[in-house]
């Protein structure tokens, strides 16, 4: 079964284009300098439409997660993490933690993680792995 994939919209296309070239792209308000996620063409903090797209560091910490023991059919059969990471730039995003055992012991809150991309046809998804792994 094919993995459920995002369908980009005009407001999010830059994010998914970035993933395809190995860049995690965030947006920042040019008025109040707030970084935010998910993408939208205005600043959620102050409402300004003057925003810019930039390449994030890809560094984050593991903020919270579950280990799903009843995976969706398109996700395989092994238990896997569904996580939220807090990016160095501030925003949080959902992801999967890859490159380590999918166990509570290996998935410690606040551990440093970094972005890595995996391609599924026309889409590349941003995952995170333990930093330096």
């Amino acid at each position: 079964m094919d993995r459920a994939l995002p369908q980009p919209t005009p407001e999010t296309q830059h994010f998914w284009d970035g993933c395809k070239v190995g860049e995690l792209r965030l947006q920042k308000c040019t008025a109040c300098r707030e970084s935010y996620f998910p993408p939208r063409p205005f600043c959620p903090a102050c409402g300004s439409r003057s925003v810019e797209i930039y390449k994030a560091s890809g560094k984050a910490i593991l903020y919270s997660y579950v280990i799903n023991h009843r995976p969706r059919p398109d996700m395989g059969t092994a238990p896997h993490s569904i996580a939220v990471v807090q990016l160095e730039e501030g925003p949080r995003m959902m992801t999967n933690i890859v490159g380590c055992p999918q166990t509570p012991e290996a998935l410690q809150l606040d551990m440093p993680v970094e972005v890595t991309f995996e391609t599924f046809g026309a889409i590349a998804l941003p995952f995170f792995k333990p930093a330096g792994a």
Partner: protein
Amino acid sequence: MKPGSIAVIGAAETTRLGKIPDMSVIGLHADAALNALADCGLTAKDIDGVATAGESPVAIAHYLGITPTWADGTAVGGCSFMLHVRHAAAAINEGLCKTVLITHGESGRSRVGSGGFGRAPSSLMGQFEMPYGVTSPPTMFTIPVMRYLKTRGYTEADLAMVAVIQREWAAKNPRASFRDPITVDDVLNSPMIAWPFRMLMCCLVTDGGGALILTSAERAKDFPQKPVYILGTGESVETPMVSQMEDFNSSKAFRVSGKKAFEEAGITQADVDHLMIYDAFAHLPLYGLEDLGFCKPGEAAGFIRDRHTAPGGKLPLNTNGGGLSYMHSGMYGMYALQESVRQMRGIAPAQVPGAKIAVSHGVGGMFAASGTVIFGNET
């Protein structure tokens, strides 16, 4: 709203709860509606306001033969019915209608005549959450909890204790789905669903429905049942994506909704005799006790462990057994409201002696929305 200006005059659940494979979703709405109409001695012709979620108010009005002058289809998940009560109270006070019917029905278990679970892949959830394997509430509502446990110093056993004590309440309720006592070890040894959540920390999936009928307090005295007055209400919404909630340790929608309801009612937490906190999962009563101001952050788990919310405790909580043990069709808020009304009428299976003020607090989506209704049996 003016506290006590509106009352519940009719309240009922579907005749059966649990597994009802011979009824569709709209059939469950109608069964509950007819029971609530019988409860107050009215017919559909006497209703001029309709509110519902899950189905459209158009479908419910037409199915029951109601010609409303007011309709509300607010659908923000399981607490929609708390919002309907609030909106209905405002509508009646404004003269938009006189007698409102609020219905719920859901074939959560048997899936007869109900839609599927899915999000458009172009929605924000479809783009930024679904690709990572979230399935249904057990993998979404639970996302903030590891962070919450760490921040508060709570443990898996604290989550388990919520389920254990609610089962004690369910044991007193003949209509509860699960009534056998359980221990913390039973919960911690039940099958893993999504770490750190075990099966007994997750709600049931059942079929059922419920309905409420509201009118002005003035008219309420002319009906057969003891009126249950609405003293205060609140509502709020935060985000459709649980990964984007502002604070993983506290629900903004809970705080805003709860504060508004208490202010409106002009009461404090100490005045509350009976409390319902929508418990789709074991962490919700902990968040609710803290965000509604009954416990300081970090004290809710101890409060439950010390049996303050258990039978005989000072703050009886989820006395029907809750979504964890009583029933959970999908949008449980209606059943929390029904139990509050029963407690205020003095007819609950696990009746809290002398209860005068009851708070019913609901959640919608995965911390997406919230609604609070404060009931009293005196004006």
